[in-house]
């Protein structure tokens, strides 16, 4: 199997979610997916851009889709759901002949040649598939109870994302199951974690991420599995803040799905960036015999 696509890492991939980028690249290599990083990619504008203006947001994102096409990539994947949502929305706008000129006016460049976008999660599920993953697993995640948390925009709105179930997504559940883990029925899969409120409105993250941790704990979750840099940061880096605000004492590791998948495929703790996580997952992984 040989898959070759353009790769958009997103800004957090070289900062707060460096372990997501690292484990994504390592897992894709292991699964025979060639990721070609878009040369000189720039920020998609994330949430702040679309809250200011939709055309500004589309132009910031479209720059990357046009760059990718110029570099010979028809298809781009990104690990980050926020980048995905912005890049996809921009794609829609430049496909619309009535809207495209507005984007082109800000970008000062034609947008008729642009790459399409998907998440790396979608690529792995749809193009690699569970059978191939099962065959490639060398270190099953048996005796590990995980809860998969997708966050609010990996699958929504469904009309834009066209992937998995918007209320009860299964992509990561299926991957974790293929890796041999016990997947718990986590009911808050798509409930928001508080998103970018971490800095300006801490009470919101304490409440919303607090709910997620409460439910994860009630299911005896050993590890929470995520696919979004912002979700992961709120649940992991801010877990202490959430504990202090709510009077709880949770100590639940929160990892990226690519980190656990990588370990199951035989990658080392170093290769999937485990040491970058704040709540240390290694005691549980050792106990389960994964490390």
């Amino acid at each position, binding site marked *: 199997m040989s898959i070759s696509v353009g790769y958009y890492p997103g*800004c*957090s991939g*070289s*900062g*707060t979610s*460096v372990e997501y980028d690292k484990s994504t690249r390592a897992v894709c290599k292991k699964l025979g997916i060639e990721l070609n990083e878009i040369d*000189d*990619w*720039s*920020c998609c*504008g*994330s*949430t*702040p*851009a*679309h*809250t*200011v*203006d*939709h*055309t*500004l947001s589309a*132009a*910031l994102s479209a*720059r990357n889709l046009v760059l990718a096409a110029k570099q010979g990539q028809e298809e781009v994947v990104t690990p980050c759901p926020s980048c995905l949502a912005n890049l996809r929305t921009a794609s829609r706008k430049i496909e619309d002949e009535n809207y495209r000129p507005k984007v082109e*006016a*800000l*970008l*000062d460049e034609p947008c008729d040649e642009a790459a399409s976008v998907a998440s790396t999660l979608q690529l792995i599920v749809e193009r690699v598939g569970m059978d191939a993953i099962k065959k490639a697993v060398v270190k099953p995640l048996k005796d590990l109870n995980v809860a998969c948390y997708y966050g*609010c*925009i990996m699958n*929504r*709105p*469904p009309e834009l994302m066209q992937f998995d179930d*918007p*209320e009860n997504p299964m992509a990561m559940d299926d991957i974790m199951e293929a890796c041999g883990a016990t997947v718990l029925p986590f009911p808050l899969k*798509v*409930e*928001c974690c*508080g*998103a*970018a*409120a*971490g*800095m*300006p*409105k801490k*009470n*919101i993250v304490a*409440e*919303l991420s607090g709910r997620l941790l409460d439910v994860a704990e009630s299911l005896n979750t050993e590890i929470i599995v995520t696919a979004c840099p912002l979700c992961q940061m709120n649940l992991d*880096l*801010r877990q*202490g*803040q959430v504990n202090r605000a709510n009077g709880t004492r949770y100590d639940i590791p929160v990892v990226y799905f690519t980190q656990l998948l990588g370990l199951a495929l035989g990658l080392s703790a170093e290769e999937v960036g485990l*040491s*970058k996580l*704040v709540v240390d997952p290694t005691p549980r992984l050792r106990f389960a015999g994964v490390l």
Partner: protein
Amino acid sequence: METIPLNSPDKEFIREVQERSGQNVLSCYQCGNCTAGCPYNFAYDLSVSRIMRLVQLGQREAVLKSHSIWLCATCQSCTTRCPNSIDVAKIMDVLRHMAREAGYATERNVKAFGDAFLESVEKHGRVYELGVTASYIRKTGRFWTDVDLAPAMLPKNKLSIKPHEVRGKEHVSAIFKRFRERDTAKENS
């Protein structure tokens, strides 16, 4: 309790929201599904279904001065669950655009964070996380923001001391420049 004068709807406001969002706000029949699923409802001053109703009633001031429109995180629950396929999250976004233009920012810190983020993108082409934090602190005077995270964060060596500059950063900053020129031209016309 504040009363809302229903005999004087701002029809221009209704028209503008509809045009800018591409949504038919009049098709909302107030089932409340959006509010039932809204994770932010506990923090809102006006629930999202009430915002929808106030838009239908042309209540520009009440809507644009609400805190809710700044707290919405565009999580898409409302849009996903609306039985009339109204893109409610897009309407909330458009209301934020209009509130900004009208000079309202009832959640100053939320606006300051967004502004700090975009200034970083404009300057470097990519987000420089430490720079965003510093700029946010400068704008808000909240010196202790996230200082408690330092002991957990610093040993992980994740945050770059220097921004990751994009070669085409002038291309990115020119997008912002043309955006501002476009808006100024619109105001003058």
